[in-house]
């Protein structure tokens, strides 16, 4: 039982990281019908940006204020990169066939990945221990402070995003743009601004995810974006791509699935089973778990 609960805690931690990254995929897909393959690399880049902010801007301070500032500054920096990405790689291709945009996304992914390598080097970089190593033992199930922070902060961000999209006027504009861009434009919605906003939100959430990866695992490499991007992409499809609660659910489920397969079957096969799951979902329920029941896609 201890083992089961421990795997559950592990699964929820990595699941919430997947979910944060998956939101970036799903929001862009919801509005633009585009798989933003560069998103994983944006996440990797944010871990490196965060590290640089820590060493250069914060002067290696480890106080709570400094940590919060690192999160905010990284999110702002990545939001700017996100807007530039949309302007350079996607907006010129908005009327082009969908395949062109996908190829452009793959190209952007390579540019960002190699950019990280050129700026920060090919070596593994190591994140500082910004969160104290504090653990709580609940009768054999050990949970660390960083796990609690990741889980709570992810949930808060996801709930906030959900409320923003469902309850505010700007959220309504996002939803309208995802249903029909032309009609939205006729209603006086500036679709370009909505798309820019989508990239800002997606990139900032991805930045938080990237910092979590750095804080939790400590070692970051320039090519890690591919791995996390792929997991988050599967999570988005699992929950129903284009659907915000779907991405959250998909991320959590994928994290749990991964932890349990690795724990009870074989860690070697965890990736293989993840892809089998993806294939099964695509065959049995191509729209994902929440894809059909929730009509609106954002």
């Amino acid at each position, binding site marked *: 039982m201890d*083992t089961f609960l421990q795997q559950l805690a592990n699964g929820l931690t990595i699941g919430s990281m997947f979910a944060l990254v998956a939101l970036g995929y799903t929001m862009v897909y919801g509005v633009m019908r585009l798989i933003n393959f560069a998103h994983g690399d944006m996440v990797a880049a944010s871990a490196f940006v965060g590290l640089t902010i820590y060493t250069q801007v914060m002067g290696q301070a480890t106080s709570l204020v400094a940590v919060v500032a690192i999160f905010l500054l990284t999110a702002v920096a990545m939001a700017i990169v996100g807007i530039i990405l949309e302007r350079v790689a996607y907006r010129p291709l908005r009327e082009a066939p969908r395949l062109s945009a996908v190829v452009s996304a793959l190209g952007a992914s390579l540019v960002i990945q190699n950019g990280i390598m050129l700026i920060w080097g*090919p070596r593994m970089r190591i994140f500082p221990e910004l969160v104290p190593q504090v653990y709580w033992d609940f009768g054999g199930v050990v949970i660390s402070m960083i796990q609690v922070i990741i889980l709570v902060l992810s949930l808060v961000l996801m709930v906030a995003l959900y409320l923003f999209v469902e309850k505010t006027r700007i959220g309504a504009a996002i939803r309208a743009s995802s249903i029909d861009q032309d009609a939205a434009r006729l209603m006086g919605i500036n679709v370009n601004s909505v798309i820019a906003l989508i990239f800002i939100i997606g990139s900032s959430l991805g930045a938080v995810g990237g910092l979590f990866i750095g804080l939790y695992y400590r070692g970051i490499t320039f090519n890690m974006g591919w*791995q996390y991007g792929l997991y988050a992409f599967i999570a988005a499809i699992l929950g129903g791509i284009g659907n915000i609660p779907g991405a959250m659910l998909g991320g959590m489920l994928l994290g749990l699935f991964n932890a349990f397969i690795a*724990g009870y079957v074989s860690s070697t096969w965890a990736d293989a089973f993840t892809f089998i799951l993806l294939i099964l979902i695509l065959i049995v329920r191509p729209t994902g778990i929440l894809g059909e029941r929730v009509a609106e896609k954002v």
Partner: protein
Amino acid sequence: MKKYLATFLAVFLATGTAFAADTLKVGVQAPITGSYANEGQGIENGVRLLAEQVNADGGVMGKQIEVLVCDDQGTAMAAAICAKDLVNKGAKMVIGSYTSTCAEAAQKTYFKAGVLQTSDGTADSLTENGYWTFLRNSFPNSAEAEFVAKYLVDVKKYERIVVISDFSTYADGLANATEAAIKKMGGNVISRDKIKADSQNFTPVLTNIKSKNPDAIFFAGYYSDGGQLRAQQVALGIKADFYGGDANDNPDFVKLAGSSATGAFIVNVPEPAALPTPIAKSFIADYQKKYGEMPPSIWGLMNIDGMRAIIHAMEQTKSFDTKKAADYLHNMSEPLEGITGPIAFAKDGNRKGGAYVVKKIQADGTYFNEYVQ
């Protein structure tokens, strides 16, 4: 037109061979990028430094050394391409690679071309093909496995030992050899697990291990995973003592594990700073002067010793014939003084000798020699 082309080709080839005759080409096949870049760059830096020193002394029998570098990224596929590339460029000897997987993937190409290869790869399988071109400048896994088994079972008297590796030639080989050696000594291996290198999330495997209540964990893998494994072990509250195999002996292990590194053990031959000989001290001082840092680990220096041995053999046989040099090295009457201790090779290309140390990581990140063989 044909005539011009022929003349051009003739001139080109003539200058090409004339140029080749002027230098002794030394290839470096190492992971310059990727997870093990730290070690690969250490090998490249060391080779360049030694080449510089040899060239300043007039080269090898009048020939200047030219260094050719190929990045194998730590992957077998790139290693095979590197081998072809370095052979085509006319390398007489190749230093590297860092990983056994890469050394193994390139071995046959060098053997067919008669190019000497010296690697720190410790997998036993590297010397099992009987290639005369292959010279191991480190000590094989089986020697380490024997030592680890003896230490864990006889000295520390652990009763519930877990052995973990990744899937690489080196790590899997070392873990299997260690498991077999422990069992032979009557020790109890309660679990033999495998992790996927670079996958970062090792908690599912560790959670299972936790339920088996081990008193010692031996990890035969690389530092880039070892540091994270150790951190996650501590985070899960597994009280077992952690032992990292030789490839965990890298400063990045301590950085990755952070405060969790304290109390972990690493098994290896003595580290660069502890090398006692004057030749080691002067080379390490030169290295620090040139690059502003210590060599990342003992492995780069082992490779430098391999290169020094080959150059020594060429000078002794007064020939650039690789076969003659190999024969000389396989039959040395007395060992050459090396940076990492005396160097001599057995007939199968294994380096002779080797003593291990168990190092405990202190709270400040430095090593304390817990046990010296």
